[in-house]
């Protein structure tokens, strides 16, 4: 059952279709064990953005105020795509890395566990 409705066969308009974002798509980014930034971020990105740009520019900028940000060793980072571990190719685009519209990208930074180890 997809909805309890007055008219049979009722369907709804998907409000957040990728076509509504002017050529961009949404990417959700969450840093594990770092809850000072209270929730995962939502940013609009071009689908052909190289994954490497996330590491080099975008993610450090998003978390600029966190004391752990400068200490991240990107070679040791564990990446999760919709909760599953995966090995992104920095030279390839988000699309080629399997990160489509409204993809969820999480990363864990071994050895870094937030302010005074509190996962903040």
């Amino acid at each position: 059952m997809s909805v309890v409705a007055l008219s049979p066969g009722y369907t709804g308009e998907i409000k957040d279709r990728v076509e509504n974002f002017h050529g961009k798509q949404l990417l959700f980014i969450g840093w594990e064990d770092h809850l000072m930034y209270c929730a995962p971020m939502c940013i609009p990105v071009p689908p052909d953005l190289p994954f490497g740009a996330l590491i080099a520019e975008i993610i450090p900028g998003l978390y600029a105020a966190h004391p752990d940000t400068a200490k991240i060793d990107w070679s040791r980072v564990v990446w999760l795509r919709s909760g599953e571990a995966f090995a992104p190719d920095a030279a390839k685009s988000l699309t080629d890395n399997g990160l489509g519209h409204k993809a969820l990208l999480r990363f864990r930074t071994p050895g870094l566990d937030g302010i005074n180890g509190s996962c903040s």
Partner: protein
Amino acid sequence: MNTPLAGKRPKTLSLKENYALLTRGLGWNTTYEPMDEVFPQDKFEGIKIHDWNKWEDPFRLTMDAYWKYQGEKERKLYAIIDAFQQNNGQFNVSDARYINTLKLFLTGVSPLEYAAHRGFAMAGRNFRGAGASIAAQMQAIDELRHAQTQAHTISHYNKFFNGLHDYMHMYDRVWYLSVPKSYFEDAMTAGPFEFVTAISFSFEYVLTNLLFMPFMSGAAFNGDMATVTFGFSAQSDESRHMTLGLEVVKFILEQDPGNIPIVQRWLDKWFWRGYRLLTLVAMMMDYMLPKRVMSWGEAWEMYFEQNGGALFNDLSRYGIRMPKYHEVATKEKDRLSHDAWGAFYNYTHAAVFHTWMPEDSEMKWLSEKYPKTFDKLYRPRFEFWREQQQKGQRFYNNTLPMLCQICQVPMFFTEPDDPTKICYRESDYRDNKFHFCSDGCKDIFDHEPEKYVQSWLPVHQIYQGNCFRPGTDPSVPGFDPLLEVLHYYGFHVGEDGGEYQDSPDRKNWELWTGKPGAAA
């Protein structure tokens, strides 16, 4: 019309006769049009009613009694508000931080009263039983009165403090106000039986003590006699609404055994939606009241674990069990308020009320009330923020958060069994991904995805360019999209929201009262 005959006194009806005429005598079965076409909305939800006459309003309220009681309450309320204003009562509250609870109430709760007025008016139209219809119409009038008395009471504060100037405009636009708005619109766009189960039972009966009590006793503890008074004025209506909520559900359950699984699903859904909405109340209780009444954790234990448990025990004879995921809510009780306050601290520059870090004495209270979580998980974060602020680097989060598709709260909730890990859930539907903060919210989506693919998520709407004022040109050099969004919200940027310590509200309070703006 009962025009009196000359020389004869009109017969006075007993209350019982009066009520019977109102709720049964005024109903009739239509003959020109089939009843199903006159009342097209009371069958599609699958609820079967065999005998509308079994509906009994426990209060048997009649119109003349209703006008009399409400009129008396209005006279008392407005007399007290007058006295409050003439005596500058706004300066007798604990300190100016307290006013932020009123900002939250006026923008987040008063519009729900108005929405409830509309919702009950619609339910009153859509029930074919006259008793149910009359009860819904009376509640519709109550709710309109509540919206009005709240606006009248709080408008006095608008003369002295920021952030109270345009609450209905904000309710339809601001990112965190989409949480209460979407909650109510979800109920109003369901059928009339789901609406009354959601609002009359799941909210008014099961959860309202966790909304109304904290705001009204918070007002009393913090010296806000005006708010206490509208609270009292609404309280007798609230008890009537609560009783009605229980009667509604019992009536539906007794009419047909097929109704039981439908009602149980609604109870599961609306418990969870109502509980997520109460996140705002949790942080108000633990962080926004300068003088605290009780902690959120204690309120949850008293009003849900004990009272709610007893209620669902009573309902078990109908085949109803406790709402799904109630145990998750109980696991979250030591974290909810801290996570929520932290989130508003992140984004307070985009809110219409101020946030601040608790003082030492308040951190001590939090440690005592939350021995399992506060010192371990939250104190380090809060002390870091306080240090940053003292260095002139007050922390703000400048990136928009990911939202839950159902409750629309930023995804700050943690795993039920691990308070250090964000709880992520997702579903794929029609080639799109949808994300949720909890199993409770994911279940709601998975049951009716066609409804919730339409959610108006503020963050996504901003990125689609739908949250600017008409005529805004995003292509001009130096365009600041987030600043434009705040203008669209109707905020007075630099006055509303942001850090309390730096706010005009605090400066004015100290100037006008000579009292400190916050406890030491």
